[in-house]
């Protein structure tokens, strides 16, 4: 990583919508000849032709290649990070009740006495084949446990997204329509209040009122195998509500800002002069052009819903990925931490890629370099 590291893949040129910080990657496709393809002439010209004919496929391919590289970098960083933490698995796991003999036994058993590079490569070899090994602490298969936990996390994230995304976009459009009038102000104040409160606090407030005082909601939100679907839904009601409140404002405000941004452009003025109604202008003319930054914010929030909800999981006693990883970090359970880290990274990378592709699909002008 001498120059700009993994960022050298698809050159992230100047954005089309400069005022949105994230939209810089939207162009995705190289504006100048691709540096990775430029070295071999034949390969280079083939790549250039491919990029020209199938810009979308080229973008996806590039992104995938980059993602794999990024994942490797992430795994190395996680490994290094844990190596740098004070104490290894043996001492941390046994804690204050450890005897030197027990520590020694565990170290030998897990091969912690071998150099880190060897251990890393061993682990990587397994991970490439989809085998994340067994947890050092519980001796269970990591892949199996993650299957379970990831399912729980996705279940929670799915319902949170199902409610928050349409709600945020709808409220955003509503706010634009009633710009600077009462509904806009109410929406703004409430969403700002929600985003200003830390999520654990929102969680506690919901628990206090809905579970303790009124007794209408299920708490704790622990889910397990033998639960029926409806029981599960009732169990996750409070955490989903918390997550919706936490992510709503971000997406709503971005929708509002992006549409307002477009509203000041010439073609919207034309539409207004044509005498179209406000809602029609917003829905038909402004919204499609404002979709790129909104998709990006939604993607970031979706990623957050999967990987960033540790606090919510702890507060609601929900067995998801975040809690799983935190437990593993506490005892330096390497295989689990690595696997979780990689899956989280994969989620971020995938959702960002999806956001970029969707943005390009929504706005064909982004498809070709200028």
């Amino acid at each position, binding site marked *: 990583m001498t120059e700009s590291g993994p960022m050298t893949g698809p050159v992230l040129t100047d954005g089309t919508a400069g005022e949105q910080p994230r939209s810089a990657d939207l162009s995705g496709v190289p504006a100048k000849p691709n540096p990775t393809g430029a070295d071999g002439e034949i390969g280079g010209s083939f790549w250039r032709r491919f990029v020209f004919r199938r810009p979308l496929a080229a973008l996806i391919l590039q992104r995938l290649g980059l993602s794999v590289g990024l994942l490797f970098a992430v795994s190395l960083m996680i490994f290094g990070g844990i190596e740098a933490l004070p104490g290894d698995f043996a001492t941390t796991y046994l804690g204050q009740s450890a005897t030197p003999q027990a520590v020694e036994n565990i170290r030998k058993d897990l091969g912690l006495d071998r150099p880190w590079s060897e251990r890393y490569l061993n682990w990587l070899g397994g991970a490439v084949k989809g085998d994340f090994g067994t947890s050092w602490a519980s001796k269970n298969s990591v892949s199996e446990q993650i299957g379970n936990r990831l399912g729980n996390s996705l279940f929670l994230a799915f319902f949170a997204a199902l409610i928050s995304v349409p709600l945020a976009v709808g409220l955003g459009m509503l706010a634009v329509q009633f710009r600077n009038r009462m509904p806009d102000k109410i929406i703004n104040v409430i969403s700002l209040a929600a985003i200003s409160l830390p999520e654990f606090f929102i969680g506690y407030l919901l628990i206090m009122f809905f579970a303790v005082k009124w007794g209408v909601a299920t708490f704790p939100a622990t889910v397990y195998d033998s639960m029926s679907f409806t029981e599960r839904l009732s169990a996750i009601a409070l955490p989903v509500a918390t997550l919706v409140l936490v992510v709503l404002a971000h997406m709503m405000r971005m929708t509002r800002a992006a549409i307002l941004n477009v509203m000041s452009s010439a073609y919207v003025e034309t539409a207004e002069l044509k005498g179209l109604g406000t809602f029609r202008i917003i829905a038909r003319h402004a919204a499609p052009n404002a979709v790129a930054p909104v998709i990006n914010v939604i993607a970031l929030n979706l990623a957050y819903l999967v990987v960033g909800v540790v606090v919510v999981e702890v507060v609601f006693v929900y067995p998801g990925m975040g809690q799983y990883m935190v437990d593993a970090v506490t005892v330096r*359970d390497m295989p689990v931490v690595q696997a979780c880290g990689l899956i989280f990274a994969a989620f971020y990378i995938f959702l960002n890629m999806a956001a970029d592709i969707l943005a390009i699909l929504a706005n064909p002008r982004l498809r070709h370099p200028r």
Partner: protein
Amino acid sequence: MSDYKDYLTRQVMLGKMNRREFLGRAAAFGIAASTAGTLFATSAAAQEPKRGGHLKLGLEGAAATDSRDPAKALSQFMFVVGRNWGDMLVESHPTTGAPVPALAESWEPSADAATWTFTIRKGVKFHDGKELTVDDVIKTLQRHTDDKSESGALGVMKSIKDIKADGGKLVLTLTEGNADLPLLLSDYHLIIQPNGGLDNPDAMIGTGPYKVASFEPGVRATFEKNTDDWRTDRGYVDSIELIAMNDATARIAALSSGQVHYINRVDPKTVSLLKRAPTVEILNTSGRGHYVFIMHCNTAPFDNNDLRMALKYAMDRETMVQRILGGYGKVGNDFPINDTYALFPEGIEQRAYDPDKAAFHYKKSGHSGPVLLRTSDVAFPGAVDAAVLYQESAKKAGIEIEVKREPGDGYWTNVWNVQPFSTSYWGGRPTQDQMYSTAYLSNADWNDTRFQRPDFDKILLEARSELDEAKRKDMYRTMAMMVRDEGGLILPMFNDFVNASTKQVKGYVHDIGNDMSNGYVATRVWLDA
């Protein structure tokens, strides 16, 4: 007077007072012993255990990394899980701490306490239907004493030299005499498993009152009644559900909304709030756990006993108990034993906060300049606050303490037992011998005060094989005085175990052995509708 009688009766009914304590208090107030005895009997009879129901407990201390193997059980959660499905050879008495029979019916030491013969109970069945044999016991002990073992009981078990059967009896030979051996076998790791758990240590098959129905590490464990249980005085509820709740507020919310019947680890700071809920009962039990400030006796400036004494007198213990423990604890006396231990040396004068004496010793030590104290909130709850309180009380004696807050992650590796002056926590041990052997014997692994005294070691080893209780008590007294007046330990307080339940939960036993009724909470309580 009748009010007080009522109060006492209620205490007994709530399980807050045992018979001995009750008789003692009743006598002190002039209630005749016979009346008191009847009272106790009535109140206890009113508490005839009810059977049935589904008990839910919200417990702190579970992790996704928890192992099913009892040898590797470490967390509070797994402690209770193990108590539900397994039995040890010996248990400890809830109020006296003395060893009582469990899977071992009886035992007999040799004169030098180095050879012990245990009679194993007959007719006990494992959950899989197999009958318990001496061989299962031998295999279990062998698994935990193996040098390659990762067992948490390895330190306890390493004095066992030989394990063999002698016509249906178990014979243990030790490297040296140990009068406390039966109590050591009550260690919660030493659950007797079929074939010693050698085939499948993770099977969770034992002889306990409940069978494991499901177990998801870090999330939940459920249990069903073992209808073949060899005991009738436990296992009152039909099924148990343990839910992992590592967040203190979540536990309190779950209890006050009635979603669980019992929670552990109630923060003393929130007890007064929780008490307001009409359905909630606070259960606090005196424990052996203690919060400590440790000085290395062999490292300057703490190698000077006058400085150590100065720092001991500069500690305001009463304030510590009030402010850090919220009153849920007892003051310590600079040795790691309190009256919950059998053979506790009574009558040792309580050390009190005395700025004058502290200043006197400080001057005599010839030390000047600040003393650096390292601390972190992982050392014990409120450790940083305690350090600052200490800093204030020491200031009045003219001693300057500099408090350095260390990161919690890695505290046990980098600070505790490494740096010369730090804060820490000890969980207590089943016996005095074990407590001293773990942390005060010259060559102990965890001698965190660097207390190296051959004369102390000698008494400790002699006391270990002494079967005469009076002589032993005397020896423990001498040892306590040595640690108290010459050691590097400042022990301001023993913390209570603070748990809470709904009022439906009856029969809670305040066990001095360990937290959560020594882990037996789910097997001892019943639900009153």
